[in-house]
């Protein structure tokens, strides 16, 4: 029950971001689907990796990237529409807030620890997008070579 509610929440939040960034109206349902897949894979990976958020974020970002590439090809729309909104549920907001709070309270060591954690999660998401993007480019070149 809880998991279903979380999936629904992910669906709504990603559609919301689609409308903030004014994504095309036709793409909104697939956007929501991307968000649901993203959060579903995150829940499963969290269990598998015994709550290692960094690895879970990395792999679910890879999944988001692959979904986005597929959906973008189906809908004939830019890939960024799907990627930008799809990674929103994974954004490390709470660690970033804690970093700020600890530094504000003068506990620099704890703040640094949280800050590194935040940067690791953000970096994991970034690298996942980069890897999928590079893979898509490779795929494109590969197809060109086959066709010619």
């Amino acid at each position, binding site marked *: 029950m809880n998991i279903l509610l979380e999936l629904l929440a992910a669906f709504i939040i990603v*559609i*919301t971001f689609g409308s903030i960034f004014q994504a095309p109206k036709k793409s909104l349902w697939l956007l929501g689907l991307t968000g649901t897949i993203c959060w579903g894979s995150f829940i499963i990976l969290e269990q598998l990796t015994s709550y290692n958020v960094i690895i879970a974020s990395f792999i679910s970002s890879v999944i988001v990237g692959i979904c986005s590439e597929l959906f973008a090809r189906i809908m004939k729309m830019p890939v960024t*529409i799907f990627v930008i909104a799809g990674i929103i549920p994974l954004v490390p*907001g709470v660690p970033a807030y804690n970093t700020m709070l600890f530094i504000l309270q003068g506990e620099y060591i704890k703040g640094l620890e949280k800050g590194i954690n935040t940067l690791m999660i953000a970096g994991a998401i970034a690298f996942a997008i980069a890897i999928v993007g590079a893979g898509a480019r490779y795929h494109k070149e590969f197809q060109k070579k086959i066709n010619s």
Partner: protein
Amino acid sequence: MITPKQILNIAAYAGDIILSNGGEIYRTEDTMNRICYAYGIKYVDSLVTPTGIFISIDDGDGSSETIVKRIHKRRINLTKISQVNNFSRNLQKKVLSYQAAMAELRAINEGKPKTKLKFGLLFISFGVSMNVILMRANYINIIPTILASLGAQIVIKKMGFLGDINFIPEIVAGFIGGFISLFCYKHGLGDNLGIITVSAILPFVPGVALTNSIRDAISGDLISATSRGIEATLIAISLAVGAAISLGVLY
């Protein structure tokens, strides 16, 4: 008969729309080149940075044309990017006359006027408050999140000319979001201040800048990648500073 100068105008206008609505560098260059090739130009070269477009064409018998376009305003509207993308793809199948092409691009650029402003903000606040469920906090936190997010967004909308200065809207949004969250928390509404604040300022996270920065980096546009990466970092820091000010004032 269309002249090279007119072709260049069409291409530069299309590039302008894509770049000023949050497209990647690769997509801008690719679209402009595709439009020029569709009109039968042999040699096209373009250099695009986040703040300007340089494009030059050569029709193969000695005459060349160049255009420079400066981009001042940058907003985010993915619909327009998608429409220009489709426009350039359709152009390859059937070329349009200069007037028709410019009219179509102008229609894309002006777009439809937005009407549902008040309802939209409420919808965005509600959607953003779903982050509370994702963070597995107590569901009572949804109410202060909606209030804080709505307050921050209304203030940003009503800010006027201050909203055009970079990073000021983010600091203000962080401050207002943090302030309302803290106010609700102090009066017993909600039990997790961190999650309320983070969810309230979630609409302002630099998602587009971050994604574009990475995608530019992998396609080799290093100038744009570094500048957009710095933009994303500064926006995140501005939000944190805004929230920190509100905590420092009231805590």
